[in-house]
């Protein structure tokens, strides 16, 4: 499925969060949305997946979701959003329960995603018993179980420590390389964006405008190899120059109610 963001603007009361965003998400790519904190990245992601209504503009889709897809636009949340009173298996089962699938298919889907995310042996654990990395694996498993056409990931690794982030990023990439699901990946971390994304869209500070969309041009599987390092380092510099001044100003802004965390 392809997605077209057309002239989207969004306001929270008097505060403009996004201004005239035009963006395309292509089938099978990872598009990273990057920008300073409070620039409206998460707002844009909410609008793309239809859980936030933009003040103006619209989001268009072309193509059909794959057969068996129960929830074409599926989120992975920064704070995991797991139900603490359900086990790993219960959390993964949640989005299937109201679909009336045959018991055998339900079980098969759950077993499959638990195996793919390495959670099989933790399936009876409660979220509080798991490390942050494991919790986000549950979040990813829950997203995959509905066979999404597009994964909308809202800073999925931001709540994790550096080592866990690295490990999870590798695992996620391995998963992605097998399936090539379309992903919109919001982050404020340039290294994450350059490790995962096919293209990087840079948003300015509030009100978020699209500054640039940069194609990485190196296959994800080859990015850790020495040959790619020059290109990635140059790209890192280029992007950092775009972001740095914005980030400096954004850091000195007073955060107003209704913006942070939305």
């Amino acid at each position, binding site marked *: 499925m392809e997605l077209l963001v057309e002239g989207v603007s969004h306001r929270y009361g008097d505060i403009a969060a996004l201004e005239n965003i035009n963006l395309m998400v292509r089938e099978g790519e990872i598009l990273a949305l990057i920008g300073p904190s409070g620039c409206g990245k998460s707002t844009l992601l909410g609008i793309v997946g239809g859980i936030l209504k933009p003040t103006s503009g619209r989001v268009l889709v072309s193509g059909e979701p794959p057969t068996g897809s129960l929830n074409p636009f599926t989120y992975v949340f920064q704070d995991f959003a797991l139900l603490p009173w359900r086990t790993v298996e219960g959390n993964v089962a949640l989005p299937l329960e109201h679909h009336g699938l045959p018991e055998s298919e339900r079980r098969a889907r759950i077993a499959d995603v638990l195996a793919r995310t390495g959670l099989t042996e933790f399936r009876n654990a409660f979220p509080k018993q798991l490390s942050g990395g494991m919790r986000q694996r549950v979040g990813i498993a829950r997203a995959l179980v*509905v066979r999404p056409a597009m994964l909308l990931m809202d800073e999925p690794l931001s709540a994790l420590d550096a080592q866990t982030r690295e490990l999870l990023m590798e695992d996620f990439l391995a998963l992605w390389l097998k399936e090539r699901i379309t992903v919109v990946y919001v982050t404020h971390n340039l290294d994450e964006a350059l490790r995962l994304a096919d293209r990087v869209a840079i948003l300015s500070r509030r009100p978020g405008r699209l500054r640039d969309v940069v194609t990485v041009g190196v296959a994800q599987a080859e990015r850790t190899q020495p040959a790619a390092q020059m290109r990635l380092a140059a790209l890192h510099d280029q992007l950092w120059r775009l972001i740095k001044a914005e980030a400096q100003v954004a850091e000195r802004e007073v955060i107003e109610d209704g913006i942070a965390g939305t």
Partner: protein
Amino acid sequence: MASQALEGRLREVPFRGGGFVLVRRRGAAVIFFAGLIAVWELAVRSGSVSPLFLPAPTSVVHALYDLAVSGALWRHISDSLFRLVFGWTLGTAAGLVAGFAMGIWSIPRAIGVPFVSALFPIPKIALLPLLILWFGIGEASKVATIALGVFFPTTIATYSGIDGVPRNLIRMGQSFDLPWHVILKNIVLPGAMPGILAGFRITASIALILLVAAEMIGAQYGIGAFILSAGNLMQTDQLLAGVVLLSVLGLVIGAGLSRLERWLLRWR
């Protein structure tokens, strides 16, 4: 070596942590209560305290035994339990419904909050005369008093519990297209459960207070009626036997609620 050079001038760093940590001391309570009862018994037997004003623990136990043998004990307990269970269940059910409505929809909230704020502070026992006029002197007025006393705190506990359900979990449910009733059942209800159960603890003790008060005003049987009549006849051993019954009843309810909490909130 440095340590040899320092020899003779070395001191241990003084320890300043410690304290402010509570550890389990199970036996302490048993010893304390056994001691208290022993002192009480001795004080009465030695004659330094009149048994009319403070009967000895043994006479309280004796009174309880007589009551059990005569069969009156069961009549009092079953009448009280019926009112308590019926009144509490009724008030809780109504309170849950009102609390859920106030937790989910804006208009019930806007109407409910001032309504609850105005009526919650009234000691419900003050309404018993009115309720007797409405429902008669029989069981209905007592049950209604208890139900009314339980209703308001349950309502408050329920909607506050729902307020405490993280909004991100509800957004997550919506992002998976979960139907409204599924979100309510699988996200809102379990999320509000800790608050609701905390409310149960409060309403259980309110129900017990109202039970005794209502039975003292107009009942032939029931623990409250029994305590009042014992007091009128200066039978202080029977009076204290009734008080012991109430204490045991309160303990049993508390233990039951703890079990319910441990089971329903085992994920915490």
